[in-house]
């Protein structure tokens, strides 16, 4: 099936089975291998991309469902800024990408694209608790998450005050009294 997609701000045409996973279309048909497959069951978040600004697992999305949507992948974060760093003649990194580099947020790097893309959908100046909740769908096995929080806080301008707070019991938010 011929489908027209908007990926990283560019119109792209692909000819794929409509139920082909968006993950596979990105990697195989569009050459965007920055989006990774960690599990194929929507658990690890390594395949996270933005569809119309919302984070989704691209291993669970059929390509036909994004035919009229805007898709952003890790490759689009840096490129979307369009600026080049003339000193090294390379595309300037997105602030989250720079922060992951500086703060040690990337180790083996396989969760990193999905983690950064998920972080890009967080609100401005998120608290540490908001970061924890927002990234709960992205597994990392290397870092213990601490340096990822540091990177997100540094990039998104979180207040230092909330940064070091111990985690609230996540179950607490599930208990509602009306």
């Amino acid at each position, binding site marked *: 099936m011929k489908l027209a997609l908007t990926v990283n701000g560019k119109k792209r045409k692909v000819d794929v*089975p*409509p139920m082909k996973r968006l993950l596979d279309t990105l990697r195989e048909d569009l050459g965007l291998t920055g989006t990774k497959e960690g599990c194929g069951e929507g658990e690890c*978040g390594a395949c996270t991309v933005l569809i119309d600004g919302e984070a*989704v697992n691209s291993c669970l999305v*059929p390509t*036909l*469902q994004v035919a009229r949507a805007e898709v952003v992948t890790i490759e689009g974060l840096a490129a979307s800024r369009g600026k080049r760093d003339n000193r090294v003649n390379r595309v300037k990194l997105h602030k989250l990408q720079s922060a992951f580099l500086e703060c040690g947020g990337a180790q083996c790097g396989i969760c990193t694209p999905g983690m950064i893309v*998920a972080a890009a959908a967080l609100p401005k100046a998120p608290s540490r608790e908001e970061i924890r909740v927002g990234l*709960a769908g992205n597994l990392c096995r290397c870092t213990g998450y601490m340096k990822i929080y540091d990177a997100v806080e540094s990039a998104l301008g979180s207040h230092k005050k909330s940064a070091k707070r111990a985690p609230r019991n996540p179950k607490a938010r599930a208990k509602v009294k009306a």
Partner: protein
Amino acid sequence: MRAAAETLEVLSPRTLKEALAMLRDAAAEGRPLTPLAGGTDLFVTLNAGTLQGRRFLDLWGLKELRGITKDGRGKQSALRFGALTTFTDCVRSSKVQKHLPILAAAASEVGGLQIQNRGTLGGNLGNASPAADSLPVLAVADTTLILASSDGERAIALGDFYTGYRASVRRPDELIVAIEVVVPKGRQVFRKVGTRAAQAISKVVMAAIGHRTAWGSVAPTVVRAHKLEAYLDGGGRDLAAAQQLLGDEIHPIDDIRSTAAYRLRVAKNLLAEVIPANR
């Protein structure tokens, strides 16, 4: 082994009417279509190669199936959810937060944000997993499902919808198009006990409104504890007796995630949490 994309057929209706016609024709041919919403359950089974269906009906573009509205006032007021209402829609909706906060709570515990952004109420109901987090909430409230077909609509109380493990009264030519929930009165409590704090499959889920409770992951389908309710409505306040009644109504099993004994005990403990005895 993952299902090959080229072996999968999908129809993309532009309107609900067209969708219902496609369902009718497919059912008539004996080649039923599996409705596809956000894909968060369906693609997991496709990727694992455990889904039998090879023909799908893509609903994602149907705007008619979106939106949360509140109808009526006072006693008769109800929330109406389009079947494609996502969990994120539930979490963000001020109507849900105000009138059915346990649904917002349940929705915020379904997978990570990526899943909440795509998973839908209609999909959760249609997929019919006994561990589905939204079902106890819907079951404990007065919830009616609106099923549509080319012949028209019918309303089914959620309590009459399921007939067994992953089985329901929905005909192959029918679609869940909306969910109507009477705005409840009374204290609302939601507790999910899962395998971890996020991205977890439930071991026990409880939703409570006043005396009413509904339970997930403890039987082939979601369980509304009617006998327990009758006991409490009749003024019964003995905790042990209440727990005994609950124990009779649920049928948990051992599986790779937990044990029957644990599920039973935790369900009873949770009951003690929401219904303090002698009060």
